């Protein structure tokens, strides 16, 4: 078929027009081989602009389209839609970025114009070698696997479960609830934590679309977004349960920092030194007391334990330490409580108020460094350096340590099973810190709650809701899912069966066909990075829309 290339140069209002000599650009590319029409337009992405393009494509019978405008990050999709509306395949088009990487980077109009011409020529050279690609859709399973039966997992289960969407919740311990079950109350409302959880767990029990596995671990997750195969092993049961889901949510929570790494706080060396969790449990059981059964008259809460070692602030310790002051004041009103902290982390709309209401008589906040706990007669002695650099000490009956939050011990194993990576502090890595904080590098695998990083209950609920929302929006019962089109492909006749491509693929998207002795790409899993294409020694692998010829054409323009 004869190629009829149409080139449209966008002025982008004054954005490109003022920096690039557009008429010169139009003149320079109009006589190129295959180009049937070159036009400029004020603003191609506007409604009028899109309509104009559509009409032009039809009028000139354009088969291949080049747009010279802004970055493909901005409007690549916009003009793909125009192509579709005009009846040409959206992959038979190329966008030359003459704005962000051309018009805006130099004051020299001549140079900018020259560069724009080269960029457009490169796009024209490339587009000649474009092939039509068809949208691909696959059947998907709307069910979801949620790992971790804490507040994040429970909340997500309830958000997601419906008659046409089954939820499998896998909890490694023998009961649901997670960390929060140890707390008597939650901050800042100081409502019993059972208020948050009790009703939700009752709802879980009643919901027949939720299947809960306790005392169980996920052993295997294979497949891809829309179609994962899962194996779950229950303790002391030989045969694993097997089922299929479309998405996976990791809500595995967190652990506390190992206090063996900070011997200066005297934990397990002296009596009456408790971790935050031990103190929560003691408080929940009713009485706050010393080992000898007596009531403590003075208590030190040491914040930021393990912060230096971990290299991050755990966000929640200051707030639960303030809550501990409330616990203490409720049960022992005249107790002296001293807080040793390096920074107070009390952000947000209600925490400051909580702090103001908590501090007061017999409550001290001491900004300190080099905190050390030793024993002195029947008491514990806190040695520290105060804000002015002076050495100081304080005698107390009881010490509570607020250790850093860290990932659970099985985080690496789970990351491996789910095919995702670990980021800062060893927590599961999000796809993008700001833009995609609940997605991961593996499509269809989401991370929520403390598994993603230290956070409080409200943020955990927000995240589990966000991940549930993403699943609800993408895995719709009865609806097919669109998958990546620009995947790799391995030519059966060129493949020499060396398996190099298999070794470089991050997604396990390539398998080896033992009968034919060749590698085969599973295009449903392939994300289209093109690593296997660069690695292939026999030229058998190619990446659609980024073929050797297409890139080579751009390259030729650069060396001219």
């Amino acid at each position: 078929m004869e190629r009829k290339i149409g080139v449209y140069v966008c002025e982008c209002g004054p954005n490109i027009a003022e920096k690039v000599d557009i008429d010169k650009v139009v003149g320079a590319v109009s006589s190129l081989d295959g180009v049937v029409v070159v036009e400029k337009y004020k603003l191609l992405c506007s409604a009028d602009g899109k309509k104009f393009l559509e009409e032009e494509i039809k009028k000139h019978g354009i088969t291949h389209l080049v747009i010279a405008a802004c970055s493909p990050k901005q409007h690549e999709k916009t003009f793909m839609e125009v192509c579709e509306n005009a009846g040409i395949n959206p992959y038979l088009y190329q966008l030359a970025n003459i704005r962000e990487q051309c018009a805006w980077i130099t004051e020299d109009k001549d140079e900018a114009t020259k560069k724009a011409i080269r960029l457009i020529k490169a796009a024209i050279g490339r587009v000649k070698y474009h092939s039509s690609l068809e949208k691909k859709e696959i059947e998907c399973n709307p069910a979801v696997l949620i790992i971790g039966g804490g507040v994040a997992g429970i909340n997500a289960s309830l958000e997601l479960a419906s008659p046409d969407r089954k939820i499998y919740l896998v909890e490694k311990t023998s009961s649901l609830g997670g960390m929060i079950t140890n707390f008597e109350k939650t901050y800042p409302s100081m409502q019993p934590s059972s208020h948050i959880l009790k009703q939700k767990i009752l709802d879980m029990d009643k919901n027949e679309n939720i299947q809960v596995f306790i005392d169980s671990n996920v052993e295997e997750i294979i497949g891809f977004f829309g179609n994962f195969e899962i194996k779950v092993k229950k303790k002391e049961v030989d045969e694993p349960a097997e089922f299929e889901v479309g998405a996976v949510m990791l809500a595995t929570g967190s652990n506390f920092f190992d206090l063996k790494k900070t011997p200066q706080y005297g934990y397990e060396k002296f009596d009456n030194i408790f971790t935050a969790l031990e103190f929560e449990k003691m408080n929940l059981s009713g009485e706050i007391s010393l080992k000898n059964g007596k009531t403590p008259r003075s208590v030190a809460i040491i914040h930021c334990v393990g912060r230096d070692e971990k290299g991050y602030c755990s966000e929640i310790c200051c707030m639960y330490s303030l809550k501990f002051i409330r616990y203490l004041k409720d049960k022992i009103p005249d107790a002296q409580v001293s807080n040793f902290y390096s920074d107070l982390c009390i952000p947000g709309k209600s925490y400051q108020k909580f702090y103001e209401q908590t501090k007061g008589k017999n409550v001290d906040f001491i900004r300190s460094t080099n905190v050390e706990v030793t024993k002195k007669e029947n008491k514990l002695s806190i040695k520290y350096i105060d804000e002015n650099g002076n050495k100081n000490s304080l005698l107390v009956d009881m010490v509570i340590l607020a250790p850093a939050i860290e990932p659970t011990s099985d985080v690496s194993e789970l990351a491996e099973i789910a095919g995702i990576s670990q980021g800062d502090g060893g927590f599961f890595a999000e796809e993008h810190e700001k833009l995609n904080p609940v997605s991961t590098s593996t499509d269809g695998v989401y991370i929520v709650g403390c598994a993603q990083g230290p956070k409080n209950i409200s943020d955990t609920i927000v995240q589990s809701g966000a991940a549930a929302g993403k699943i609800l929006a993408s895995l719709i019962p009865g609806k097919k899912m669109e998958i990546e089109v620009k995947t790799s492909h391995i030519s059966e006749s060129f493949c020499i069966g060396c398996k190099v491509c298999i070794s470089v693929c991050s997604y396990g998207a390539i398998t080896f066909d033992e009968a034919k002795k060749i590698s085969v790409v599973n295009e449903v899993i392939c994300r289209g990075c093109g690593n296997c294409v660069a690695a292939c020694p026999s030229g058998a692998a190619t990446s659609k829309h980024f073929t050797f010829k297409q890139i080579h054409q751009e390259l030729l323009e650069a060396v001219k």
Partner: protein
Amino acid sequence: MKKDEEFMPRILAFLCNWCSYAGADLAGTSRLKYPPSILPIRVMCSSRVDPLFIVKAYLGGIDGVLLAGCHPGDCHYEKGNYYTRRRFALIKKIFEELDMEADRLLLSWISASEGPKYAKVATEFTEKIKKLGENPAKNKIFL
């Protein structure tokens, strides 16, 4: 030499879609200035860059090749940039062995938020290539 005859090097930049291309866009949206000598080619991942592209460009007479991707650990495709790093080390070595100018090749990690870094790398690399002068391969017959 007259001003308009000043040597303007031809530099090719392979930029990964997710980090470096976005970083280069950001340099533009921030209106940072850098020499227009760089012609960008967008690839989905820096690991798509077949070393042959670099050899082809060099033998074709390109004055410099910049290869840029996400920072180690930040690859959109998990570990593509680690492969890029290894391949780049290899191609440098091959260039050195064959007495081709390995200094004309540059690998840089530029994230989507590092517009200023892209402008800086582009400026400094252009300056460096200007000092090296035209790629002699332009006029040499290699094969």
